[in-house]
């Protein structure tokens, strides 16, 4: 196999054969602990390579194996098969126990993103402590999204690639039960009728709850 491959020098002029491109993607993905985007793969591979096609081949090759090629957002990574987790006691990392508030806040951000702090408070019925958001930001599971174009231009939160990677999700669309929740109207942001008490503390009064779902979940 190694005989009919192009060498890097030749590949400046002619793209390597697909089997060789697959080997390259394999090497890059194995080497990196972080997911690698198709764009970066193409940038690192010789000119003329098609990382996306090579990835498709590679992914197929690792089906059912001890490690798998997984998609994480718009990037790719090699991860061990979850059914073999029992062998990995040694590698298990202490995951910080998240408070109930943090877990709920995370779920609300994931399912309602992009979402403002006021909207999270509206859903949970309590104010969101700074520490909770800070913890999630620090874990790099959430990040700031675009500001909402409403009075006060409140910041929004969205989940990150690290979040997807941690929970083994290809994209935020693959969140468990997302479709059902949407069908049941539970991801809507209905404004409360006139004289409802405001639930949750509203630090910023302008941060109002408009705008329904994220463009992420519209299909």
């Amino acid at each position: 196999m190694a005989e009919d491959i192009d060498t890097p020098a030749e590949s400046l002029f002619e793209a390597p054969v697909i089997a060789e491109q697959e080997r390259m993607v394999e090497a890059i993905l194995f080497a990196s602990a972080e997911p690698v985007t198709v764009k970066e793969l193409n940038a690192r591979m010789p000119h003329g390579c098609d990382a996306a096609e090579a990835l498709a081949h590679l992914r197929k090759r690792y089906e059912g194996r001890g490690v798998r090629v997984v998609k994480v957002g718009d990037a790719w990574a090699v991860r061990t098969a979850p059914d073999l987790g029992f062998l990995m006691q040694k590698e298990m990392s202490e995951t910080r126990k998240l408070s109930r508030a943090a877990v709920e806040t995370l779920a609300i951000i994931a399912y309602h993103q992009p979402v403002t702090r006021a909207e999270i408070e509206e859903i949970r019925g309590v104010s969101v402590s700074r520490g909770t958001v800070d913890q999630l930001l620090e874990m790099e599971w959430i990040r700031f999204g675009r500001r909402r174009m409403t009075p006060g231009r409140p910041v929004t939160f969205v989940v990150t690639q690290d979040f997807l990677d941690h929970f083994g999700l290809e994209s935020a669309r693959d969140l468990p039960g997302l479709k059902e929740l949407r069908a049941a109207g539970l991801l809507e942001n209905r404004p409360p009728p006139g004289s409802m008490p405001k639930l949750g503390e509203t630090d910023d009064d302008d941060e109002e709850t408009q705008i329904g779902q994220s463009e992420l979940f519209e299909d």
Partner: protein
Amino acid sequence: MSEDQITGQISQDVAERLAAEALIVDVDGFEGPLDLLLTLSRTQKVDLRKISILELAHQYLAFVEKAKQLRLELAADYLVMAAWLAFLKSRLLLPPDPTEEGPSGEELAAHLAFQLERLQAMRDAAAKLMARDRLGRDFFVRGIPENVERVRTITYTATLLDLMQGYSRLRTRDEFRPFTMDRESIFTMEQALERMRGLIGYAGHWTDISSYLPDGWEDDPQKRRSATAATFAASLELAKEGKVELRQSDMFASIQLKRRDERHG
């Protein structure tokens, strides 16, 4: 409303009653009034969509009443919710007043039911999320990631305007520059030449050129550097003129100088 009536409404059997009381004592465990309402709603044992908001309002008000009797400090938002639920209760019980503006009791109740259902849905979703196979617990990254070397290629650029501005900056400065010269710590090659011309007559043997540094120039590093450079340059000039010979045993070794005898030349 008497306490017995209320307790009777909340629970039928002793176990549930104990649970309800524990619930009251554990008021700090609740994340706000909505969370409490959600917990209370579980005693109705129905689908959240079919929940009786009226009954829930009763339960909540009973809870607040009980907390007062136990002299538990309730946060303000629990009391705000209690007041609102009392208002909602009256709206739901009384026939609608056509002169009254704003949403009907049913609309308010429906929205509260929606909020409870949505909060419950988010709790369930959070539980499902946390139960997924997770990185570092169920599946793992490469244990020995390989280093990716970063090769940075930097292209520098400048515009003609940068160039002209740079030059004009210099020229402008020139016109204003007071004429000062720092001669104190500079030993010129001419000075060195002059000094050495007078001394080389005595250099019949190989001598280190550092011994030709002028007196008082060895201590200050800046001065010594200037003097060394000038002496070295002067030595080269003298060698070129055929007045001296230079030698150096090794790289960075000291350079030695000797008068060039006319006979050999």
